[in-house]
């Protein structure tokens, strides 16, 4: 992704569109800054005045619960005014064009768009079309990237495991259709992780994945061996109709994360999932609920990480968390 679009002339975040193209110090700055923001959530008054008077529109062209609510909480904890717009794809098709929708919002003096869209590259397109002062945050675009999710996952990994260099990280599931996996792979490799593995049937492994610096495994027992971090991805039900998989049952048989398989990983391996989970399809309940699971911490961390990213994009070289808290 073109770096110039995401960064301003001083190397500060203008938009947050993709992990690809960002440098390690910037990702580390996000993680450090998020660290400072976690304290806001622990206070009784969960608010800092950092974005007071700013208006943020959450534009969700695709349904989402977790991402939208954690974005909204992050925005409100930064004291921004928040506008939620859920525009289903079919309504968008019948009505005005994407650009018209956005230009109307620009006319309403919105300062920032948080965008989820089914088309890969949509936030990139919007960022290019917007006037200079408006920031665009990618809340998930098609099969491309979900960069804030990846950053909250990195935050969670760093908090529990420390440095990225020695870690072995295994991502299990539908890599082909996963924007989360793509962002995670970029983030892990930028942050210095040397051993990134993906575990998936060949039908759900994208072409030339090795070019992204990962090792592919078609057998979970091999891929999970000695892993320090295991990320389980959601398996969408529609994969059964596109001739990607025969059945959920067989997927669980071959790729489901069970306690037996978890035992092949490193002794203190953590289990992550970006949600929402299909218990009994990609992960067995007792694993999801075990003390190895950090799935709910991911959700909590998501708020602080998103606060950090929102604040960085909106301040552009000005304040950050330390100044506010």
């Amino acid at each position: 992704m073109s770096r110039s679009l995401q960064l301003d002339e001083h190397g500060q975040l203008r938009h947050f569109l993709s992990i690809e193209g960002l440098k390690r110090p910037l990702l580390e700055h996000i993680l450090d800054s998020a660290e400072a923001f976690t304290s806001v959530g622990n206070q009784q008054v969960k608010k800092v005045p950092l974005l007071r008077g700013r208006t943020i529109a959450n534009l969700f062209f695709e349904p989402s619960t977790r991402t939208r609510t954690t974005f909204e909480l992050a925005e409100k904890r930064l004291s921004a005014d928040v506008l939620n717009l859920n525009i289903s794809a079919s309504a968008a098709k019948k009505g005005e064009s994407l650009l018209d929708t956005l230009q109307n919002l620009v006319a309403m003096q919105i300062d920032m768009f948080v965008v989820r869209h089914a088309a890969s590259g949509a936030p990139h397109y919007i960022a290019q079309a917007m006037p200079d002062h408006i920031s665009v945050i990618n809340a998930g675009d098609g099969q491309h990237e979900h960069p804030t999710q990846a950053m909250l996952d990195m935050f969670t990994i760093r908090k529990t495991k420390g440095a990225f260099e020695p870690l072995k990280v295994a991502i299990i599931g539908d890599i082909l259709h996963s924007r989360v996996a793509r962002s995670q792979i970029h983030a892990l490799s930028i942050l210095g992780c040397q051993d990134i593995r993906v575990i998936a049937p060949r039908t759900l492994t994208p072409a030339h994945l090795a070019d992204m610096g990962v090792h592919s495994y078609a057998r979970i027992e091999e891929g999970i061996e000695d892993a320090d971090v295991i990320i389980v991805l959601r398996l969408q039900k529609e994969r059964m109709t596109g001739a990607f998989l025969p059945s959920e049952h067989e997927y669980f048989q071959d790729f489901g994360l069970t306690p037996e398989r978890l035992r092949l990983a490193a002794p203190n391996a953590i289990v992550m999932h970006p949600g929402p989970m299909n218990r009994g399809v990609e992960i067995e309940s007792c694993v999801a609920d075990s003390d190895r699971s950090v799935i709910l911490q991911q959700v909590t961390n998501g708020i602080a990480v998103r606060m950090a990213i929102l604040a960085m994009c909106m301040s552009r070289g000005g304040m950050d968390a330390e100044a506010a808290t």
Partner: protein
Amino acid sequence: MSMKSEHRCLRIRGGRLLDPATGTDRIGDLCIAEGRIIALGETPSDFTADETIDANGLWVCPGLIDLSNRVREPGEEHKGTIASETRAAASGGVTTLVVPPDTVPPIDNPSVVELIRDRAKDSSHSWVLTLGAMTVGLQGQQLTEMGALRREGVVGVSNGLEGIRDTRVLRRALEYAATQELPVFIQPQDAWLSEGGCAHEGAVATRLGLPGIPSAAEAAEVSRVLALIRLTHARVHFCRLSNHRALSLVAEAIQQGLPVTCDVAAHQLYLTEMDLSDYNPNVHLQPPLRTQRDLQALRTGLGNGTVSAICSDHQPHDLDAKSAPFMETEAGASTVETLLPLVLRLAEEGELSLLDALACVTQNPAQILGLEESGSLAPGHRADVILVDPEAWWTVNTDQLLSEGKNSPFLGWELKGRVRRTLLAGRTLYELI
């Protein structure tokens, strides 16, 4: 087409005459009378010119024949018209262009052929030829009345980008086209493997999260069609090859003596999947841009003669069609005005001799289409002639493009070689001021 042939006698003096069909590359004169070329090289002693054009320092070549050019009329006049797109074509040196059958409505019956001819008669700046649909509505089910289409003047038949999924229908369509002695133009892409795709399935599409079209989609369709050619003996021209595996299948078939030819689009010789990396909608193409290896294979195929023609695959779009996230934009690029300089650049880069490069846009497409009057400067041919300034550099920009479609993938490129004048049957229909 409106133009009546020019009765006056015209002498183009002192240009570098470049005519692949006769192997001509020399400084000399070209004499035209009544819209036809009457002398190539020396002016006959009894020839009196009404007008003399000084071509000193210019190249004099046959007008280009473009095997695929969507003029968008009828049905999509908001993207372009016969008037606007043939004017753009003339400015790019294209004097004959072939319209694929996927107009709206499609060219699946003689009345659409007639309609296009009538509109071209009034407004065209180049000769507009048509391909008929092989199946009604391009639906891949019922055969069209190819006999009636042939009598109305189509130069071949095709099923456009859609292809014919049902192999039995495809077989019958090939047999029936052979019965009507119509060449079949096939843009090979397996419908199932390419469904929903908008980019080459490879490293770049994986990174960008774009649904891919594997190279195998093209190779699989070429294989299927080649098997049916062996069965039906239809004459098939494969259009817009993009991939080295498909190309080697065609090369093998040609070596075995099968009646097949193929072309490439000029942009496939210069752009690859890497050009997608900023989601530029102007490089959303069908077939998709592929890899550097494919690009080199296509160039090699031109060099060894497997690929005999280069077309523009011109597809002008309105702004709205390209104002959306990449995968929601319409595929296709506005390319007729960059065809000639890109072809000339192949010679400059040493891929082909200058005459061989020009043959890919003149003599060879004329042969593929069975045109006897055009594609050459030999005496007796219709005087479709272009004068080219080979040293003129120009920058591609939207203000300058005459096409209604500003969706060029080459915006900002510096190109060398510019058409100074285009003659159609001896009449000047375009002149660079």
